[in-house]
């Protein structure tokens, strides 16, 4: 059948028409072989613009449509839907990008831009000539979500998905859910107690009939694809039968082995058998074999087993593996602080009275190691002067991390304020580069710290901290007055940069989802798809995606949950059919495609001795097509023949 292709050139106001001679483009292409209709219009994406396309399809009986406009990421879906309503197969509607890749980048040379636009459209005409009518691939949907990470983001996401009526598996690597938020004292800008506002949510998770909570567990393996993931979860040996344990705490009380508490940021000890904090969910202990006398000294101890009234202690317990099927995965693995060891100029962790921001949180917390009193770690005295440092590792392109960690300005302001509330005659100094208070009520909070709590903000980055006469000497500068500043403080608190949780990097590579160069999970679009990964079926929540405070983490978690709920609203998931296909007649069975496929979508048919693509998994990345030595692997609607003709058109040969 002879092709009858329609070309629709969009002006995009002056975005395109201001540079490209759109009239000439439409006129020249009208004469190109195979083109049955060619026109231009101010805004092709508007209703009248779309109607123009639809009417032309019907009137001219078009077999292919090229819309020359903006990037296909913006309006490909729009015009494919328009094509469908006019009776065309949507995969025979193509976009030629003459805005982002032409008019916007060639504003200085209108003639060249016009000629490039013409060639770009010709390339797409060549493609459209051989485009086949395709149908989306339907795959079944398992309406169950996996949430990885039990901090505030994971908790919120799990609750929202569960409240939408779907089953959720919430996996948390430590013994309790709660994450970093459970460690915090009070929260900016309202100063409500972190645990008071968080524990109701934690309890709700534990009691929710739709949520299966798996603490002290890690995701070991994930295979499959959106709607049909298979996940393997490793339930770490807790050496405690936590199903029977009532959390009476007798074992913890009697345990003789101590080690620094992770929850208290090493400011206090915990036992080898422990519940991380009083409001832990579940409130049942786990035994840390690395620090347990029984394990370290070949069975010499066993006190916990002796005192347990329910015989819950099981030294023989092994890691348990659980396999589950889920349709979507929300990654909420959270953050860590940038290691203090990396900041040698501030002592790198060797000065007892130079502490991290999370350590100061624990100190301020009523449930913390000092019962909420601010005390110098070195001698337990109340500090009369405390220096707070922002940007410890952040905004330092040369030595540390280039990005702003976003939350430090606010939490250090809160720290300075809470210190003043607890030590009325104390003096708080905050060294800053910019005080960034972008959030509702944040600027007012900062003003309150400066005006009502006499916190002195000093504009400059501290260059050095050292110990002198039992005090921490802080050397900085006040760039506002040009004075070099020296403070002999009792304590210094470092606002260390926010980095992705260590576990996140491992998980991201296992899940095959993208991260940025610092390890934060990448969103599909920085503005318009901020809670999805580019890989379908994966959603992002909280500071695993980038530094975030509590309200933002909660908002993103709810957004991710609503995306999952929308996904689960259909019993089937429709995937793009623009994927690889292997010609069984020519495939030699070399298996190169299987070795290069990053999605495990290529498999070997042992009977026919050929490779095959699992169409529900293939993402259409093209790796196998490039690797296939016989050319048997081809991308649908992007075949070698199409590519050859497209390149020829581009080069005008």
């Amino acid at each position, binding site marked *: 059948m002879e092709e009858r292709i329609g070309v629709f050139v969009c002006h995009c106001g002056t975005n395109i028409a201001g540079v490209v001679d759109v009239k000439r483009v439409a006129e020249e292409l009208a004469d190109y072989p195979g083109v049955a209709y060619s026109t231009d219009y101010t805004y092709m994406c508007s209703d009248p613009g779309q109607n123009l396309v639809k009417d032309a399809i019907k009137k001219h009986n078009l077999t292919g449509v090229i819309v020359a406009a903006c990037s296909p990421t913006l309006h490909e879906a729009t015009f494919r839907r328009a094509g469908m309503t006019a009776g065309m197969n949507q995969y025979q509607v193509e976009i030629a990008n003459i805005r982002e890749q032409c008019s916007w980048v060639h504003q200085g040379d209108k003639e060249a831009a016009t000629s490039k636009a013409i060639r770009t459209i010709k390339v797409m005409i060549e493609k459209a000539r051989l485009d086949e009518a395709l149908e989306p691939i339907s795959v079944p949907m398992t309406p169950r979500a996996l949430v990885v990470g039990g901090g505030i983001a994971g908790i919120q996401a799990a609750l929202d998905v569960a409240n939408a009526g779907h089953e959720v598996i919430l996996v948390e690597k430590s013994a309790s859910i709660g994450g970093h938020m459970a460690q915090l004292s009070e929260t900016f800008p309202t100063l409500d107690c972190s645990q008071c506002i968080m524990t109701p949510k934690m309890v709700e998770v534990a009691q929710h009939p739709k949520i299966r909570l798996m603490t002290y567990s890690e995701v070991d393996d994930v295979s499959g694809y959106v709607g049909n993931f298979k996940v393997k979860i490793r339930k770490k040996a807790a050496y405690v039968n936590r199903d029977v344990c009532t959390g009476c705490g007798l074992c913890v009380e009697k345990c003789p082995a101590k080690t620094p508490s992770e929850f208290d940021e090493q400011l206090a000890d915990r036992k080898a058998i422990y519940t991380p904090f009083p409001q832990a969910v579940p409130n049942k202990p786990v035994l840390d074999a690395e620090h347990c006398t029984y394990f370290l000294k070949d069975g010499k101890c066993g006190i916990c087993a002796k005192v347990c009234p329910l015989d819950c202690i099981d030294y023989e317990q092994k890691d348990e593996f659980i396999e589950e099927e889920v349709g979507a995965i929300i990654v909420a693995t959270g953050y860590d602080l940038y290691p203090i060891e990396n900041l040698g100029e501030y002592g790198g962790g060797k000065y007892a009275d130079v502490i991290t921001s999370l350590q100061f949180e624990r100190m301020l917390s009523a449930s913390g190691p000092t019962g909420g009193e601010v005390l110098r770690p070195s001698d337990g005295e109340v500090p009369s002067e405390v220096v707070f440092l922002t940007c410890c590792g952040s905004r330092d392109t040369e030595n540390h991390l280039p990005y702003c960690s976003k939350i430090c300005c606010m939490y250090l302001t809160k720290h300075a304020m809470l210190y003043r509330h607890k030590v009325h005659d104390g003096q708080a100094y905050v060294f800053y580069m910019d005080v960034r208070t972008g959030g509702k009520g944040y600027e007012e909070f900062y003003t309150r710290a400066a005006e009502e709590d006499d916190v002195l903000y000093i504009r400059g980055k501290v260059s050095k901290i050292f110990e002198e006469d039992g005090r921490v000497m802080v050397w900085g500068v006040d760039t506002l*007055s040009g004075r070099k*500043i020296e403070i002999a403080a009792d304590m210094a608190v470092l606002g260390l940069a926010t980095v992705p949780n260590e576990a996140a990097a491992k998980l991201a590579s296992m899940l095959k989802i993208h991260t940025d160069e610092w390890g934060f999970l990448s969103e599909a679009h920085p503005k318009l798809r901020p809670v999805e990964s580019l890989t379908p079926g994966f959603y992002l929540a909280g500071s695993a995606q980038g530094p975030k405070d509590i309200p933002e983490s909660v908002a993103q978690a709810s957004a991710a949950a609503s995306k999952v709920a929308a996904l689960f609203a259909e019993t089937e998931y429709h995937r793009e059919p623009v994927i690889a296909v292997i010609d069984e007649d020519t495939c030699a069975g070399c298996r190169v495609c299987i070795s290069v496929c990053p999605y495990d979508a290529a498999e070997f048919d042992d009977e026919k001795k050929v490779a095959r693509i699992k169409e529900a998994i293939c993402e259409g990345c093209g790796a196998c097509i490039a690797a296939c030595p016989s050319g048997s692997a081809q991308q649908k609607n992007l075949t070698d023949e199409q590519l050859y003709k497209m390149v020829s058109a581009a080069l005008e040969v």
Partner: protein
Amino acid sequence: MRLRLTAGMVKDEAIDRVETLSGQSILACYQCGRCSAGCPVVEEMDIIPSEVIRLLQLGQIDEVLSSKTIWTCASCLQCASRCPKGVEFSSICDALRAIVLRIRLATPKVDADGLTKVMMSDAPQMGVVGALRKLNG
């Protein structure tokens, strides 16, 4: 020279006095510099208005009291009308001048009793009053 900041300096009595006399909050200033940017006599000042406030925040009152700035300010209130934090620099200048004058009161520069009749009749009346007020406090 490094400036050694201490709690006592930040909450200095003298700074308290400036706040009381002027009715202005020194720590409210967030150093945007708008007062200095709009001041019509800033060229004549040795320390610009925003820096005067900054030095007070750092407890450096002596440096401010000996500056030319506090005598240059004409109290036109340009700064106060534009300050986003409601700080009246002119009132702070009033307070600083008052402090200087009260210090000088202890050591008068003009001997009022020693003024001769000739001097009194030749000199403009306002000049005599001004000299006594400014130099003797």
